[in-house]
Structure formats: structure tokens, C-alpha cells
């Protein structure tokens, strides 16, 4: 561990905005992933000038700097594998401007997604990427991870809503990227390069985001299927038909059983269920989309098909999907729900096969895995439920994950659809992007020659995620 010039950091951010006590450091060493590592200091800048000063110091002293928003990253993006300074960006949490005439807003990076939406609501607008973690995820974290969510099938991911941003580079320079206009063709789209960069290229200190009107009408439907293949074919046909769902979610039988087991919801235990939604300003247009999806589900042997505009009914339809998360955590006291191999994307036509593959691999390695996700955007989630105390279960998980990713790549899918790479997914990421890794490292080197920004992540992450850091669980040896 290098010595940190605490006095210098104190002089930059003030006594009230630095933590160096071991218990604080221990806490800031975790996020929502399986990893843990100790930082050397936590610093909370309140202004762009402070971010610049911290980076100038760190670049001089060659100290790693890891930006942190809500710490809800699921693959260890904020875990300081090589120690260093955690830059807690939640101190910069102002919504700077809501410009209705020009349809953009400017925010500091620590603004929480739900808060931004609360502020936009009185104007009849919303910021659509909205991950499930929107109650704590910050705009900075969403940009750095290119977060997306249930409605991304219609409205796109964070990348599609970012018009421009201000970024502090590792040497402390401040740059303005992108523009405040809807379109821009003025050279390299460098603001988009920052999207998904996981804090390795620069610190976002301000973002200009677009927003869209809140639809007047929302209608949600559900269809049950007796085989995964039928459900998968329905997804693919819906997307190929030109229908515009605002949500298209799949839940498999393991998920349905988990929800029934822990919440007693009494859902019909079929092989798979599809939840679909359409929204819009004109009811007839929404009807048109919903009917189109209903007919396709019917054609693929969907049963119990039903849709409603009523908010209470919609909540009821979505309850199974919404309850899935807690249901998996409560599934069995001895099994923890871990975020591993949890968000791959595959082409629509492979959705059903992917879910089947997950089941097959889980059986083979005697672990519980469920398949669900935002199938409308090609994203398949899974959770691995395992006894985290048992070393052999980690070994099984390791093998299972490798097989899952081998399959994903074999069908031209991608390692991560929304949660990013961080540490946990580096192995598959490196294989998938083998031919562009050199380009990636050239870019990194050009922007961050001293490798101070979130080192040891993405292409630099250790191949073996199990031993990359301490695991945040107690594992018996």
C-alpha cells in the first residue's frame, strides 16, 4: 500500500469530506457484487474543481482513483482491486437545469435516477433508461455502465439518452464532450466512449440528458406457455412483427416456483410466462400493439392470455416478476442469491434455447439457476443460488458460468447486456472482444497513461474472478 497524502486531500475537499477510518474503508470496499477489497481513503468531492485537484494529485503520486455512485454495480466495478482513493460522487447531487424548451436536463453525476424522474414528473416527462436499481443508482454510474431496464426495448439504454457531458480526465483537465442538441456529427462521439467505460477513462462531473413525455396510456398483458420453446418463439415473432412493446419480460418455471414458494402468490406453475406492455398517447394505438402481441402469443400456444389498462390489474400481472428478486433471496436460508453471469444478451431467436441451456447447466452442476429477463431487448438474467460457505459450490459456479458464456458467444450473444464487466465477467469479455482488446488498451493508454483510473478492471481484470479479490462471503476452506 502506498502512503496517501491525507493532508493534501483534506486541503482539497475539507475535513468533512474524507474518511480514512478502517471501518469506513471496509464498507466502501464492497458493492453489490461478490467481491471485496480495501481502499486507502474515501473522498467526497462537491465541485468539479475538487475532482480536478484530486485527480492531479493522484496522477502525480500514481494512486488509483475509483469513482463510485450508489455502489449498486453487480460485477465489482467499484471494488478497489489495487487499493487507492474511492471518489464518492454522491456529494455532487444537484439537478442543474430542466430545460423544457430544448428538451434536455443537466445534472451532476451523483443525482439518483428516481430523484431525476420525480423532478421531471411534474413536467409530464421521464428519463427512460431506468434500471431496476433506480432508487439508488446514480446518473454517473448509469452512464459508466450503460445501464438499461425493462422499458429499454422501446426507449433504449442510457447511451441513447446522453447528449453530452463534462468529464475530468486523469491529468485533471476538464473536457466538454457531445452537445446539447438532439443530433451531432461533429467528429468522434467521445461522450459515447465514456458510456460503458466503467470509470476507467474519466470522471463524469456533469451530464446533459434527453427525456421523453410520460405516455397517457399503458396496457400490460400476460401469457402462459407450456414449453420454453413456445415462449421463446413468441418473443422472437413479436420483435420480428414490428410490434413496439414498451416491455417484454420472460420468467421461467424456476422463477415462478421460487415466487410461489416464498410469497405464496399461487401463480400457475407453467414452463414460462411472458409479460408484455405497450404505451402511448392514443388508446387505439396502444390497443393495436397489445392485440398484435396477444395474437402472436396465441399462435405460439400461449394460454390464459389477458391484458389490462387498470393500474391495479397491471400491478397484479407484474407482481410475479417484481417479487422475483426477494423470492430468490428468500428461496432457502442456506442458499444465497449471487450476482454472477447475470445479464447476457442473445439474439431473439436464441432466447428459449438460452433459457433451456441455463437449466441444463444448473442441473449438471447441482446448483439452482433461474432464467428471466428483458427479452424484448435480448437480455437474459439469471441468478445463481448456492451455499456460499462451500468451496465446492464456488468451483461448480465457476464451471457453470464458463459454460453459460461459451454458449452465449457461440450464438453471437454478448457477455453483458446491462450490468457491465467489472471483475466478475472479465474472462468471457476478454474472449468475446479478443480482436479489439488491443485497440481498447491503446485508448486507455492514450487517455490514462499512468493507469490511475479504476485500474484492474475490464481488459485489465484478472482472468479468474473467484480469486481476483476476497469474496464477500465466508467460505470454508
Amino acid at each position, binding site marked *: 500500500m502506498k502512503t496517501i497524502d491525507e493532508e493534501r486531500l483534506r486541503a482539497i475537499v475539507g475535513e468533512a469530506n474524507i*474518511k480514512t477510518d478502517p471501518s469506513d474503508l471496509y464498507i466502501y470496499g464492497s458493492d*453489490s457484487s461478490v467481491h471485496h477489497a480495501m481502499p486507502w481513503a474515501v473522498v467526497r468531492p462537491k465541485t468539479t474543481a475538487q475532482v480536478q485537484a484530486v485527480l492531479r494529485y493522484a496522477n502525480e503520486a500514481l494512486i488509483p482513483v475509483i469513482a463510485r455512485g450508489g455502489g449498486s454495480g453487480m460485477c465489482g466495478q467499484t471494488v478497489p482491486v489495487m487499493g487507492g482513493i474511492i471518489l464518492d460522487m454522491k456529494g455532487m447531487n444537484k439537478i442543474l437545469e430542466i430545460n423544457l424548451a430544448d428538451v434536455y436536463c443537466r445534472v451532476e453525476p451523483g443525482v439518483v435516477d428516481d430523484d431525476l424522474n420525480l423532478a421531471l414528473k411534474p413536467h409530464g416527462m421521464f428519463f427512460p433508461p431506468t434500471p431496476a436499481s433506480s432508487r*439508488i443508482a446514480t446518473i454517473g454510474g448509469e452512464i459508466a455502465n450503460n445501464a438499461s431496464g425493462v422499458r429499454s426495448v422501446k426507449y433504449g439504454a442510457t447511451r441513447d439518452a446522453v447528449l453530452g457531458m463534462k468529464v475530468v480526465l486523469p491529468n485533471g483537465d476538464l473536457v466538454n464532450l457531445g452537445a446539447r442538441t438532439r443530433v451531432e456529427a461533429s467528429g468522434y462521439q467521445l461522450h459515447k466512449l465514456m458510456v460503458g467505460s466503467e470509470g476507467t477513462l474519466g470522471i463524469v462531473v456533469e451530464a446533459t440528458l434527453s427525456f421523453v413525455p410520460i405516455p397517457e396510456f399503458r396496457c400490460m398483458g400476460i401469457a402462459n406457455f407450456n414449453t420454453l420453446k413456445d415462449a421463446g418463439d413468441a418473443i422472437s415473432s413479436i420483435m420480428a412483427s414490428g410490434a413496439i412493446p414498451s416491455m417484454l419480460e420472460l420468467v421461467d418455471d424456476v422463477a415462478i416456483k421460487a415466487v410461489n414458494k416464498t410469497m405464496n402468490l399461487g401463480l400457475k406453475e407453467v414452463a414460462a410466462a411472458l409479460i408484455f406492455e405497450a404505451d402511448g398517447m392514443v388508446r387505439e394505438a396502444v390497443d393495436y400493439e397489445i392485440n398484435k402481441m396477444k395474437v402472436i402469443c396465441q399462435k405460439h400456444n400461449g394460454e390464459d392470455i389477458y391484458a389490462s389498462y387498470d393500474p391495479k390489474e397491471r400491478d397484479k400481472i407484474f407482481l410475479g416478476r417484481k417479487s422475483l428478486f426477494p423470492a430468490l*433471496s*428468500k428461496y432457502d436460508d*442456506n442458499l444465497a442469491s449471487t450476482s454472477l453471469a447475470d445479464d447476457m444478451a442473445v439474439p431473439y431467436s436464441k432466447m428459449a434455447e438460452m433459457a433451456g441451456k441455463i437449466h441444463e447447466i444448473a442441473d449438471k452442476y447441482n446448483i439452482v439457476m433461474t432464467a428471466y429477463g428483458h427479452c424484448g431487448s435480448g437480455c437474459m438474467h439469471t441468478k445463481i443460488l448456492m451455499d456460499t460457505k462451500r468451496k465446492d459450490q464456488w468451483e461448480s459456479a465457476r464451471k457453470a458460468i464458463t459454460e453459460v458464456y461459451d454458449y452465449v458467444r457461440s450464438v453471437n450473444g454478448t457477455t453483458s447486456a446491462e450490468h457491465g464487466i467489472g471483475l466478475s465477467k472479465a474472462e468471457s469479455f476478454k474472449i468475446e472482444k479478443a480482436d479489439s482488446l488491443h485497440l481498447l488498451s491503446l485508448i486507455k493508454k492514450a487517455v490514462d497513461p499512468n493507469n490511475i483510473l479504476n485500474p484492474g478492471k475490464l481488459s485489465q481484470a484478472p482472468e479468474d474472478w473467484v480469486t481476483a479479490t476476497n469474496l464477500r462471503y465466508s467460505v470454508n476452506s
Partner: protein
Amino acid sequence: MKNKTKAFKHLEKWEGTLANCIRCGYCFEHCPLFKYTGWESDAPRAKIITAFGLLSGEMGPSESAAHKLFSCFYCKRCEAACSSGVKLTEVFTDAKKDLIEMGFNGPGTTSTTQMNCARCLICLGACPHEARSHEKGRGIVVDPVKCKGCGICIEVCPAGAAKIQNSFGTNRKDLMERASLFMTTHTSAKAIVFACNWSYYPDLQASALPDAETRDKSYEILVNMCGGRLERQLLMAPFIHNAWGVMVAVCPDEKCEHNGNLRAKERVEDLRNTLKSIRIDPERLQLVQIPAGDKTKFQAEIDTFVDRLNVLGPIR
């Protein structure tokens, strides 16, 4: 990998829970401690991580680790928000028991008794959790495990002897200052709304609005810990700064852990009579009961109150 330490014999039973917490962080946005300091290490997830660190032996017991587990108002907002059904406050209580046995103690958010105690014993009767007792030779003693930090003792103590060392912005002085700041910096200011932390107030949680959006704000929501703590001086303070009205939001009957809502009801009724006696319309002081999580009802109640104040106009 880690070795479990055996010293945490109460905490030990939560080992599975500490692994099952998915560390999603859903518990932290509404925690009054986090909202006040803005440090993640004051948030509920941080306490769970601390408990795990202590139990696994990754983190040695220390003053600052103990401080984290002792600091909690037991409002249980975190439990209501938890994605995984973790009984956070029960984990904290067991961790506290172990830490006390190891010689660590508060202060956390729990109340402590100071030198100027008059031994009137009023606080003993007022404490809804039987956390206070009188011991010969020691005076008033607080059981830090039983104390849930509601702070009712502080407001009943006539000698100002009962104190919360770390109030996270919820003590009378802080609240009075914040009420005064809002009233004096906003020309549009009309009302102060005191809400207990259960009210799921409809404001932004961890971010700030653009100045242009807050300039014309007519009310400010201030979070105290429990309606039972709202005393006369605090409730009247906004009127001194020309507030048109004051609103108090508490939990529905039978729903308050500390019976603070009943105390608040009595206090508000009493003050309404006082207002009447000095010819101020008692409508200017309102109490509403909001079921936990019902932001919509809360917003509607505030809007109705502000509409009513607009009819009444300023106090002349």
C-alpha cells in the same frame, strides 16, 4: 478466506442472513442517517457489511465499528425497503449485545443522561421501551440495547439532562434552524411540515432540485424522528418566522412503535387551543396521519393544507 470469530455469540445466528443480503443497497435511500450525512458508511447496508466484517473476523471490533451499529433510530424504513427480507434492526440489536459484552458502548443515537439530572424520573415513565431505570448511586441508567432512539425522553426532560449525542439533524435546535432558514430565504414560504421518518415523504431523497424549481416553494418538509418528540417551542417556532401554518405528519393509530403519534395528537390539540386563545385560527396547525409508504396521500394532504392557508392568508 475467512475464519469466523466466536466472540459474537448473539450475532452468530445471523450468519446466513448476512450472506443472503444481496447488498443491493435498496435499504439506504430513506435512512435518516444516510440522508443527513450523505455517507454510505452511515447507511443500513453499511451496518450489515460491518456486522459481516465483525462476525467473519475481517474487521476487528473497534470504537468506530461499534459506533456504526449503535447509530440507528429503529425507524425500520430499511426493513420495509429491503429486497431480501433482512431484519436489519434485529441484526443490529444482536451486534450491540455482543459489542457491549466486549466493552464497547454507544453513544450512537441512543440517549445518555448528563450531570444536571434532577432525578425527577419523568423520563422513566415516558420511555416507551423501558430503556431507562434508576440505579442507586448511578442515577438514571440507559440500556443501550433497549433504547430505540425515539428521543421522547429528551423532550419530556424538564432539566435538559436527557440527550442524544448524535441526533443526525433531528434535534430541536437543528430543526428550528432549518425551519427558520427556509422561512427566511424563500419569499414564497408559507408552511413547515414536520414528518416522522415513517411518512415516506414525497420529496427527492438524495438529490437536489435546480434553484429555479425551488425558488417558489411554499412548504418545506422537515424530518424529525418521532411525532412524540415534537414539543411546543419547536411547533411554534415557524410562526415566529411568519409561517402561515404548520403541519405535523404522524403514523396512523396503533402504528407507531413508540406511541409517539398519541403524544403528538395531544400536543397539537393543546396548541390549537393556545392559538385560539390568541385569536389565531387553529386550522393553521394541522395533524395528519399517513400510513407508511403512502406518498400520494401525504402529498394530497400537504396540497389541501396549502390551499387552505391560501384562503386564510398570512397571520396579521
